[in-house]
């Protein structure tokens, strides 16, 4: 039965993804995000990384892609859950047999597809703007794929956890963005990590964002660029390992937290939330 419900969730996720493509609000967000990063890339196009022929833009793009995966997973899942807890989507799912399984599967699918779309929106113009990117071989694209999949698995469950603990959709933004910005600053996304003190590098390496950036760089940058990395290595095994551990722990904890949250949902808790939301609006 739960496999059947998960299958229904797949079609639900696909439908919601398609619906987001016809929503002006969602499209604006995709375009805005991609546009902001593309502007950064355009400004950096003509300068090169010191001592190499790699353009600065090309060296930064993979980090941006990695950050987008993390943001897509965390922010996407967290805001969806917080909003849909408030508006009653979740309670509806709960009132239907195996509905929560279908709902969560649907959300995983739609958030993942949304993240993929935002990656494509940045990657496609990047292919035209940055000649170095078009030279990426099959191995590079395969690396890109597993980093994306593992990266989503390593962030999405935590987004869902934050979304189910947050009191309102408004608090979610802060709960996600503040830690993400902090971790991003030390994770070598916009400039190489080796410039940072050793202990800061160590802290950054605990979190998925550093590894997402590193994984993406290993996929798209020529091997000569490896000298800009800590220990002059792409650390592929470690990337796989750290992201994998985050994914496993998240996938282990998230169902417990989500289950606890879903059990507490009822018509009256939702009405209380609706009253609070309407107070915010007026």
């Amino acid at each position, binding site marked *: *039965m739960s496999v*059947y*419900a998960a299958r*229904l969730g797949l*079609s*639900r996720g696909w*439908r*919601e993804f398609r*619906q*987001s493509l*016809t*929503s002006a609000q969602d499209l604006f967000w995709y375009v805005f995000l991609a546009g902001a990063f593309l502007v950064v890339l355009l400004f950096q196009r003509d300068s090169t990384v010191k001592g190499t022929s790699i353009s600065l833009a090309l060296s930064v793009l993979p980090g941006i892609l990695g950050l987008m995966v993390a943001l897509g997973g965390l922010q996407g899942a967290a805001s969806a859950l917080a909003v*849909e807890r408030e*508006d*009653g*989507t979740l*309670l*509806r799912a*709960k*009132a*239907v*047999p*195996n*509905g929560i399984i*279908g709902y969560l599967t649907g959300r995983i699918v739609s958030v993942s597809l949304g993240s993929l779309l935002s990656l494509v929106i940045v990657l496609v113009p990047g292919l035209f703007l940055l000649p170095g990117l078009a030279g990426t071989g099959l191995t590079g694209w395969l690396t890109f794929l597993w980093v994306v999949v593992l990266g989503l698995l390593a962030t999405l469950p935590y987004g869902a956890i934050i979304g189910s603990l947050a009191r309102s959709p408004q608090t979610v933004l802060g709960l996600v963005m503040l830690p993400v910005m902090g971790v991003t600053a030390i994770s070598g996304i916009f400039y190489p990590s080796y410039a940072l003190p050793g202990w800061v590098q160590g802290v950054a390496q605990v979190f998925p964002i550093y590894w997402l950036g590193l994984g993406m760089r290993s996929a798209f940058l020529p091997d000569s660029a490896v000298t800009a990395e800590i220990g002059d290595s792409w650390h592929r095994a470690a990337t796989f390992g750290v992201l994998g551990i985050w994914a496993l722990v998240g996938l282990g904890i998230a169902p417990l937290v989500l289950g606890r949250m879903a059990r507490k*949902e*009822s*018509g*009256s808790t*939702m*009405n209380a939330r*609706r009253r609070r939301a309407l107070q915010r609006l007026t």
Partner: protein
Amino acid sequence: MNVGERRRGVESPVIDVRGLRMRYGTVDVLDGVEFSAQRGEVLVLLGPNGAGKTTTVEILEGFRTRSAGEVSVLGVDPAHGDECWRARVGVVLQSWRDHGRWRVCDLLHDLGRYYTPYSTPGRRRPLGVEELIETVGLGRQATQRISSLSGGQRRRLDVAIGIVGRPEMLFLDEPTAGFDPEARRDFHDVVHRLSDLEDTTILLTTHDLDEAEKLADRILILAGGRIVADGSADRLARQVAGKAEVRWSRGGEHYVHSADDATRFVRELFAQYGTEIGDLEVRRASLEDTYMAMVHRYERPADLMGAGR
């Protein structure tokens, strides 16, 4: 109708609540609630705000954990109801803005499919989307986005979603709040149809006493954490207020008298004044009088003792 589903026997009630307690902090909101419902019965739960109607319904829905007492819905304790039990129970929720981007027919189709594995030969699940849309009167909105529905249309959709799995037990918490008179009448038709044709047991809460009288096979009044009255509207009226109100006019003046035996009073009235009497009106205690008396009585516990319910 269906042998398999009746294997528990007609006597075993669909809802059975014994000594239900719910405590929030140090306050007992529910303090020994007891009632039961037979298959196909329509129960209306009345009570002042804060009496615990919603709490009671949510405990029965399996959405809230009770403090104490025994509760069984369709033979299962809702606190431990599995997905198979969930498939037999319908809940009409008050939607707000969920699924705004979905079209009416798409959402009904999607949610209906979750019930397919629980279909039985005697009870085909889910209900067809077209039939469902027809039943609640959303024919013209079938392909509209849910966000474009009016408040009343949304409530119709809520009802449709609640019955998409052809529930054997249906819960509705203030289903007609915000309905216009036509929507209200349509909704009453749906309730009658469900209980008559589908043998669905229905528990609903409302503040509309007229609605309660129209729909209920049995009315329950919840006050002071207990069920203080349980019976048909008629029976409750007789139980509470033996007096009827008699109004008449004579010689251009209007009179009102409250009589224990209205028939006898009217007979004597005519014997005395004959054709002088006009505008005769005899009004039995309405459900509203009954309700007020019951709730009031609860507020003065000494009287309640005296009444010996």
